[in-house]
């Protein structure tokens, strides 16, 4: 059958694929934005002094990391209507993706902050820098610098994970492939095209991540 691989039909379906690609991009983009917010807040709570807040952040992070995203997605999809919270499929998907990635981002940010030697803060204090200046010129440049490759890695995972929202019938890239596969009985054309688009996104993000890492090494050398 693979000798009948039909580029013509892929061409016909290209508008659908591009719509799906666009949906995948913006769903992932919005999700990573909220995930960053959630992650930074959760990390702040976890490193805070309040025992209660610390506990809550810990439970959130551990329970997300120990359960699959698909179960979380179904949890919200089937569970929210019973609480009379009516979100549409896209919103439910974004909620699940953001909460899921937020837990991982919290761990990434924590690792970044912990990685800065305490001597740095002490030296900055001795230089007479105040709290904001220390954050702005000493801690954050180093913490963010080391976490950005990991955050981009998490973004790659998020883009891949966003394929799961196709299972609650959101039209995105994977769903576009499924539609083509079922309408034309052409699973090979449909899913290989989808895979190619995902690889394209992956290589762009990987290139960015490598570029940033090289820049870091360069900056450290100077």
């Amino acid at each position, binding site marked *: 059958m693979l000798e009948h691989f039909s580029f013509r039909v892929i061409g016909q379906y290209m508008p659908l694929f591009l719509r799906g690609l666009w949906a995948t991009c913006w769903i992932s983009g919005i999700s990573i934005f909220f995930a960053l917010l959630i992650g930074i807040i959760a990390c702040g709570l976890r490193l805070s002094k309040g025992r209660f807040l610390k506990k809550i952040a810990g439970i959130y992070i551990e329970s997300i990391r120990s359960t*699959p995203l*698909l179960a979380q997605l179904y*949890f919200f999809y089937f*569970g929210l209507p019973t609480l009379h919270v009516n979100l549409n499929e896209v919103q439910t998907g974004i909620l699940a993706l953001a909460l899921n990635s937020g837990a991982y981002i919290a761990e990434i940010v924590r690792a970044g902050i912990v990685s800065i030697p305490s001597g740095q803060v002490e030296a900055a204090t001795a230089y007479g820098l105040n709290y904001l200046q220390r954050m702005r010129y000493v801690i954050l440049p180093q913490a963010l610098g080391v976490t950005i490759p990991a955050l981009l890695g998490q973004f790659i995972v998020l883009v891949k994970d966003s394929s799961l929202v196709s299972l609650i019938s959101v039209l995105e890239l994977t769903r576009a*492939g*499924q539609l083509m596969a079922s309408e034309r009985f052409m*699973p090979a054309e449909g899913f290989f095209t989808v895979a190619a688009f995902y*690889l394209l996104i992956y*290589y762009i993000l990987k290139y960015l991540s490598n570029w940033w890492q090289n820049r870091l090494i360069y900056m450290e050398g100077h």
Partner: protein
Amino acid sequence: MIAIYFKGLIHTLPLFFKGLWITILVSGVSLIAGTALGVICGILRTIRKWGISRLMGFYADYMRGVPFLVHIFIIYFILPEVGIQLDPFPAATIALTVYAGAYISEIVAAGIQSVPKGQMEAATAYGLNPFQRLRYVIFPQAIRVILPPLVGEYVLLVKDSSIVSVIGLTDVTRVGWLTVQRIPEGLMVFGLVGILYFIICYPMIHLSHYLEEKISYESQ
């Protein structure tokens, strides 16, 4: 109403345990096969000859870049067209094995490369053959770097195994999906599904953390 649903859920509990067994089975088999595949590909990845390392790099990139959902659709729906008909269980196992193998190969390759080059040269000078060098010199040292992320990868494997429910394998997630059609209490049903996964994954995550701390402590 909730009490009735709760009772109904208690009655379907045996189904959930059956599903849990399928989840454990499919991830267990792929865990063993994936580790074997990953170790072989990881060793191949360190060979800088005939483009082998580049080929293995593409394999890892492909699995890193393409969602597991698409990957399992490719195996389940496209292989039959080239004449390989697979039941859901073997299809799920193969998909998970190949997927985990790619990640494990990267972990193994990083572990091997973490061993100083002088070790390899010294082993060669001792007259050990390539197999002996790996077996007695490289692996005992590399295993310390490999083990913590490897356990972390196993957690991902168990979690990714939830996605095989889409091709009709009745694992825990699929049991939850089927149950929620009759008992429309999504929070309760998928809360239970979550708890079952939690029981497996939580100890594994802590094992990974423990190994990491133990090894970084020992190397000080």
